[in-house]
């Protein structure tokens, strides 16, 4: 009996350590690189490859330009509808975040203008939407888009043309 009690007591630290390790690693799930990869990939696809549903409340965010109506609708992925971009800029952060990423994650979208005479993209973003704070884990995706018309955001005009977009998901 004494030996059995001693044995059980010696197993307690092992069980406590194992349980702690499992719980700790499970807690890392939401912000581990694989989870962030999926989140930033899905956010980018939703933003630039889908037209969204801007009549819903709150809107389902999507910036892809569409043409036509009724039985014929053509979607242009990575071609940004300026009206939708203006709509996104007026959306509350919480509505935008919930539409793009899972709970516990934040998102930021930064646009950089293309300078044809310099043959490159500006180093400072011309427009930033979303969270200003990056947490301990963050992953970015870069895509290159065409803005299909002038857009006015906070009094500034983004001209029709090519842009670089950095979508960052943080958690």
């Amino acid at each position: 009996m004494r030996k059995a009690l001693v044995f059980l007591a010696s197993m307690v630290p092992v069980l406590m350590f194992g349980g702690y390790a499992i719980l700790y690693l499970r807690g890392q799930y939401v912000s581990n690189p694989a989870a962030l990869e999926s989140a930033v990939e899905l956010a980018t696809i939703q933003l630039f490859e889908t037209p969204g549903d801007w009549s819903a409340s709150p809107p389902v965010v999507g910036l892809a330009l569409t043409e036509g109506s009724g039985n014929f609708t053509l979607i242009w992925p990575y071609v940004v509808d300026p009206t939708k971009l203006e709509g996104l800029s007026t959306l509350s952060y919480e509505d935008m975040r919930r539409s793009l990423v899972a709970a516990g994650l934040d998102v930021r979208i930064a646009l950089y203008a293309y300078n044809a005479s310099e043959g490159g993209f500006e180093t400072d973003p011309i427009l930033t939407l979303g969270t200003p704070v990056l947490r301990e884990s963050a992953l970015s995706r870069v895509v290159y888009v065409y803005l299909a018309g002038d857009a006015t955001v906070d009094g500034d005009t983004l001209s029709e043309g090519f842009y670089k977009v950095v979508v960052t998901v943080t958690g």
Partner: protein
Amino acid sequence: MDVEPLEAVVGILLISAALIGALSLRPGLSLHVEYSRDAVARSIASVYAYCYVHKYAYGPLNGTELNATLANWTAAVSLDSGLNFTVELLISNGTDVVGNVTVFNQTIRGDRSVVEKPTPVYLPPNGSRGGYIVPGRDVYRYGTSDLRMDYMRAYVIYVELPSGTPLEAKNVSVEVDLPFRDCAECVGAVNCTNCPPDHTLSGNANEDNFVYSFEDRLNPIEYCWYDNGSVCVISPYAGTETDKATFTFVYDPGGLNMTAQAEATVREKSTVPNRPWVDVDKHLLMIGDTLHISYGAAANLTVYRLIDGKVLIFVAWVSNYEWELTNPLEVAPGPFAVHMTHGDDEYNSSNAIIIAPYILVVRVVASGGV
């Protein structure tokens, strides 16, 4: 402390289970680089497709301008992303790829992403239609000494806008008002007593694959005369006087009344050089076809779109030309005039063709990012 064998085995099993459980939760391999490269390749393909349709096929840029704009942008993307690209434009008739051109070419090494984006080169109708007339000749000639005139040959095409997709228009009626001296002018001028008949040609157009044509003439041209049969005035006009003929093509299904109207110049033949007619071997072209253009003299060939004046090709000083519709940067859909002009462009000849909408496939290969 003695440890029983059973206790030792149980202890080892528990420790092993804890370690295995911890190890099984390790994160998977990162595919971030591959996903990033895929996303950039997709975005390049889509932007190319959009720019081709909206800036070239239906926009202001010609093939060279579009190519330069996109190539410079792609070079900037390559520099910014650290990826290399090749970009090809392929055009398809829906079954086969019948034309292609490489618009951007960098060395491709290592892991790569390949994206092919098909896009219909067709813009949705905006509810309007248009009828476009192409006069077969500018200037049409007539003779005051032989009282002979050129055939008043002209073509019309009806299309959906903005795609330029041709409409089938059965029973197109045609009327050509000619500027020759009429009764009031005869009587008012020298008190003629007998007037020429109404100088109007009319009839139905002939169809050849959505292009409707009309060709007729007065033979001879009649003029004013006195009761004794002598001529009052020379008709139609003498010397270098010029005037306008008006073509009117009407397609009126169920009261829709689609009317296309155009003016042409008519002039005495002694003042106008004789120009040949432009002949084409087909009026409706699909991607992959070859158009044979023939003209009885050397002249400058232009093919331009009737909707907006967009020029597809210009070939200087040629009498026969074979145009292969395989280069995506030379082909846009819609109704076109095949136009032959001499240096001064004052006397020229034209014919009409339609290029049907097709499918553009943008093929992007991206490499790098390791």
